[in-house]
C-alpha cells in the first residue's frame, strides 16, 4: 500500500486554497456571512481531503491594488472599495495561477469567499454580493505575468455572470460562456442569447439561459453540445471555471435541480485549469457535498460516493418542454458561434469607426444607480481602446463621476496614442471628478483627481 500511495503522490497535484473568511460578512444575516463555508470546512476536513496525495493545500496571499486596477476602475479608488477579505479572495486565484504556470499543480480550485462575478469594470460599490471580480483579476494577471493570450471562462453559477461579461465584452481573446437560470426569473435579470459581445468581439460572449427546474440532464446537454465543441474550436490557452454552486436543487435563492454528482461530472468533462467559487447559499444541504464532488473530480478521485442525504437517483425529471427549450437555445447559440466572424464584419460595416452605447447599472447590495456611456473604437488592427463615462447616485446623493480609458493589452500603436491623447485632453477639463487610464500594455494604471489635481498610480 505504501508504494501505491507514493505512486499517487508523485503525480502532479490539485492545488486547493480554502479561504472561508470566518471573520467577514456583508451583514450578520446576509447570505454572504461567516457561516457560509463552515459546514464545507467540517466536511472536507473530516474527509481528510488535504491529506490525500492528489491534493496540495496552498496559503492565500493578498492581491495588490495594482492587480485590482488592471481590471477595475474603482471610483474614487481601489482602497475605498475593497476590504482585506476581497484582496485575499482575489489573491488566492493568483497563488494558484502562479503554481499552475510553474507546473507545480495540474489544476486548482480557489474555494474562497467573498465571490466576484457580478463586479463589473467600473466599481462604485457592491453588487450581487461582489466588490471585485476574482476571475477577471486572475485572467488579466495570467495575461500580464504569464503571457497567455486566449482564455476561456465558463461560468456555471445559477446567476448570470454579468460582471465578467461586462469586463470582457469587447475582448475577442476572452471567450465567456455563462449558463444560468433564465434572467426573466432571477437576479440579475440579464444573460439572454442576444447578449453576445461588443461589435469587435461578437460571439465571444455566449449566454445560455435555462428554464427554472433544469436538471443534471439539461446541464450536461449544454456542456456536451455547446460548451465543449465551442471550447475546442476557440482553442484557449486555459479554461477557467466560475464555479457557483447555486444551481443545486436545495439552493434558497434559485430554482434549479442540479446535484452534487452533476457538478462533479460537469467538472470532470470541462476539466478547468482553475476553478473559482462564486455563489451558492445552501450552506448545509449543498455546499459540503458539491465542494467535495468538485475537488474529487478535479483530483481525478472517485466521486461516486458523494451523495446528498436526501438525493435519490432519478429524483428529478425534466419536462419535455424544458428539454425542447434547452435544445432550441443551444441551437441558436451554435448558429451565433458559427457565424461570429460574419457578425463582426456586419457590425463594423454598420457602426463605422466608433461604437457608442448607454447603460444603466443597479447595485442591489449598495443601492447605487449608475449610468454609463461606453465608446469603443472598432479598430481593424486590435480589439480597440475604449472609454466609459460613469455617473452614479445613491438615493439622492451624487457619487463621484469619472472618465475612464482602457487600452487593451495587445492594442495597436494608433489605439495607444489616441487613448493617451484622450487622457491628456480630459484631464484638463473639470467635467469629471476623476480621469482614469488603464494602460495594460505598459501595466500602468493612473487615476487623476481633477479637483485636487493629483494623480495616483498603481
Amino acid at each position, binding site marked *: 500500500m*505504501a508504494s501505491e*500511495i507514493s505512486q499517487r503522490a508523485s503525480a502532479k497535484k490539485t492545488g486547493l486554497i480554502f479561504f472561508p473568511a470566518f471573520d467577514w460578512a456583508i451583514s450578520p444575516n446576509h447570505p454572504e456571512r461567516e457561516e457560509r463555508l463552515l459546514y464545507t470546512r467540517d466536511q472536507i476536513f473530516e*474527509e*481528510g481531503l488535504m*491529506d490525500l496525495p492528489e491534493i496540495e493545500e496552498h*496559503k*492565500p*496571499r*493578498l492581491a495588490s491594488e495594482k492587480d485590482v486596477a488592471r481590471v477595475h476602475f474603482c471610483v474614487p479608488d481601489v482602497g475605498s472599495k475593497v476590504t482585506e477579505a476581497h484582496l485575499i479572495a482575489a489573491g488566492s486565484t493568483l497563488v494558484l495561477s502562479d503554481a499552475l504556470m510553474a507546473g507545480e499543480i495540474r489544476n486548482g480550485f480557489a474555494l474562497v469567499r467573498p465571490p466576484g462575478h457580478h463586479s463589473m469594470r467600473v466599481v462604485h460599490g457592491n453588487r450581487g454580493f461582489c466588490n471585485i471580480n476574482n476571475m477577471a483579476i486572475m485572467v488579466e494577471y495570467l495575461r500580464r505575468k504569464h503571457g497567455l493570450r486566449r482564455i476561456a471562462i465558463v461560468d456555471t453559477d445559477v446567476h448570470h455572470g454579468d460582471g465578467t461579461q461586462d469586463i470582457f465584452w469587447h475582448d475577442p481573446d476572452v471567450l465567456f460562456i455563462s449558463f444560468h437560470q433564465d434572467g426573466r426569473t432571477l437576479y440579475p435579470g440579464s444573460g439572454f442569447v442576444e447578449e453576445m459581445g461588443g461589435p469587435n468581439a461578437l460571439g465571444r460572449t455566449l449566454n445560455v439561459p435555462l428554464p427554472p427546474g433544469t436538471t443534471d440532464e439539461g446541464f450536461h446537454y449544454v456542456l456536451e453540445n455547446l460548451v465543449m465543441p465551442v471550447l475546442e474550436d476557440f482553442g484557449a490557452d486555459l479554461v477557467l471555471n466560475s464555479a457557483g454552486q447555486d444551481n443545486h436543487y436545495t439552493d434558497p435563492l434559485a430554482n434549479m435541480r442540479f446535484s452534487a454528482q452533476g457538478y462533479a461530472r460537469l467538472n470532470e468533462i470541462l476539466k478547468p485549469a482553475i476553478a473559482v467559487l462564486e455563489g451558492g447559499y445552501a450552506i448545509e444541504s449543498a455546499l459540503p457535498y458539491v465542494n467535495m464532488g468538485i475537488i474529487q473530480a478535479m483530483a481525478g478521485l*472517485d466521486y461516486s460516493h458523494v451523495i446528498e442525504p436526501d438525493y435519490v437517483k432519478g429524483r428529478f425529471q425534466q419536462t419535455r418542454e424544458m428539454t425542447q427549450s434547452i435544445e432550441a437555445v443551444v441551437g441558436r447559440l451554435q448558429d451565433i458561434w458559427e457565424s461570429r466572424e460574419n457578425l463582426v464584419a456586419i457590425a463594423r460595416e454598420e457602426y463605422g469607426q466608433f461604437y457608442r452605447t448607454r447603460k444603466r447599472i443597479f447595485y442591489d447590495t449598495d443601492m447605487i444607480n449608475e449610468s454609463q456611456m461606453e465608446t469603443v473604437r472598432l479598430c481593424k488592427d486590435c480589439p480597440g481602446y475604449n472609454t466609459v463615462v460613469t455617473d452614479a447616485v445613491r438615493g439622492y446623493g451624487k457619487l463621484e463621476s469619472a472618465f475612464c480609458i482602457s487600452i487593451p493589452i495587445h492594442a495597436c500603436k494608433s489605439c495607444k496614442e489616441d487613448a493617451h491623447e484622450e487622457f491628456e485632453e480630459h484631464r484638463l477639463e473639470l467635467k469629471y471628478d476623476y480621469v482614469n487610464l488603464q494602460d495594460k500594455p505598459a501595466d500602468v494604471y493612473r487615476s487623476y483627481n481633477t479637483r485636487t489635481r493629483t494623480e495616483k498610480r498603481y
Partner: protein
Amino acid sequence: MLIGIDVGGTTTDAVLIDGDRVAKAALVPTDVADLPGCLLKALDELVEDIDKSVVERVVLSTTIITNLIAEGKTDPVGLILVPGPGTNPKDLNLPKAEIIDGAIDFRGREIQKLDEAGARRAVRSLASQGLRKVAVVGKFGQRNHAHELSIQEIASNEAPGLSVGLGHQVSGKLNFPRRAATTLLTMATRDRYREFALGMASALRDRGIFAPAYILKADGGTVPLERSIEMPVETIFSGPAASIMGVMALGLKDQTSVVVDIGGTTTDLALILSGRPLLSSKGARVDSMLTHVRAFAVKSVAIGGDSAVRVIDGNIQIGPDRLGRAFCLGGPSLTPTDALRALGLCDIGDASRADEALFGIGQALGCSKEEAARRVVDAVVEKIAFEVNEMFMEWEEEPAYRIWEILQREKVRPENVVGVGGASPAFIPLVAKRLGAKGIVPPHAAVANAIGAAVARPTLTLNLRIDTEQGVYAVSEDGASGKVSDRKMNLDQAEVMARRLMQERARDLGIEEYVSEAEVTHSELFNMVRGWSTVGRLLDVRMEIPAGLISSWGGA
C-alpha cells in the same frame, strides 16, 4: 528530587535533579531487545546510593511504541468503518476495512440509519478470521457516536471477548482517516504497552520508589504512567520531545530558538517560537499512516557527523548515506567529524588519520587539506542553515482561514541555535553565525533529554463544541457530551464551561495542579441563520495546558 530517564536509539540517559541543579547523571547503552531492562539499569545506577523516599517524581521517555511498530510486534486489528457519503474508502491510506452503511452529518445528525445486519456480518467475519481486536470508526462519529456504540454492542453480542476500540474515544478532531489510523494503532499496541507500563510501575515500587511516575508524550507533556495505557500512541516520538523540553529547561523565556540535534546520519530540527515549541499542524505520521497524535514539528535532515563525504564534479557532497564511523575513529572513509578534527574543533579520534583522509579529498578538490576541511564544514553548516530557513518558511506558509491570521503571520527568524544530543557541538556556533543568531551548547548536553523529561509538566487539550440549536455540547478528547439549554450562549460563557470541563478532565487524569495554566487558544462563534433569523449558535473553544516546565524548576 526528580528523576528523568530517556531511552534513546543508542544510549539511555538518566538524571537526578535536586531543586534546579543536576545532582547526578547516568548513561547506559540502549539494548533494543530489552527496553525495560535498560530503563531500570539506568535507574538503579542513579539511585543506588540515595534515600528513595526523597524522590518526588519520575518521568520516563521511551521508544517502546516505535520499537513495537518497527519490529512488527503489534497485535492484528480488524477495521470497521462507517464512512457515509464522501470519499471512496479505497482512496484512503488505510488497511482493508469492513464498510458498513449508515451516516452522520457534520452537525451530528443521523442522515442514514446504521445497517445493523451488515455490522453483525462484519463482526462475525472478523471474529472468524481469528481477530481478537477491532477498531470501529464512523465519519463524524465525534459529533454523534450512536453508530459506533451500536456496533460495539453488536460486537459484544456476536463475538463476546472481542476487544473493541471506538474512534470518538481516541480523538474528536475532524479528520476521519486520521482518527481511523490512530484508533487502529491504539488497539494494536495497547496490550503490550500495558504490560510495559504495569511492569515499570511495579519495578519502581519494588525499589521503594513510591513517587508519582509519568510518561512523556510526543507533545512534550507528561501523563501519569497508569493513565498512559489509554493513549499508548501518544508516547511515540518522546525522544525529540525530551530534547526540546531539555532546551526549554535552559530558561530561554519568550525567545525564538531552533533546536539542532546533530546525530550520526541525521540532524533533527525543531522550532521554539517565542518560548513555545511548534507543534506539527495536524498530527504525527506513524508507520506511513497519518494520525491525530499531537507531536512537536520535527524535521529530519539526512546529514550528520558520520555522513559519507564525496567529491562529485568538483563539488563536495555530504551524505545522505553513512559508510561507517569517522576515519579518525577507524572508519572506512572521510566524514564531517574528520573535518572538525583536522581543524581542531573537536578532539575525538586520531588527528593524523583525519589529516590523511582530508589530504585525499584536498587533492580531488585541488586545495590544501585545511581548505578541504573548511569546505566540508561549510557545506554541513550551509545545508543545516538552509533547512532551518526552509522550516521557518514552511511554518509561514501554513494555511490560514481567517483574515487576521493571514495579516499577522510575520517573518520570524531564530535568536538562538541550541545544540542537543552532543554528537557534534562544534557545528552549533558555526550554524548560529551563519543564521545571525546566538549559538548555545547547554551544559549537560549529553543528558539534556533526561533533564527535559524530568522537568516537563503535564499537557492537556480540550476541544469543546456547542450547538445551541440542537442544544448539545461535545468534548472532542474523550467523547463526553451533554445538553445545553441557553440558545444565546456567548463565547465567555462557553469558555467558563470549557474551563470547568477541563478541571474535571484534569482531576480525572490526576494532573489538576496545572489546570490554572490552561489557556484558551482558539475560540469562535457562528450564528446559524436560517431564512432571515438566527436559530442558534455554534461555538468552538479550545483550551490547552501547553508544554512547559514544572513549577519547581527555575531554569538553569
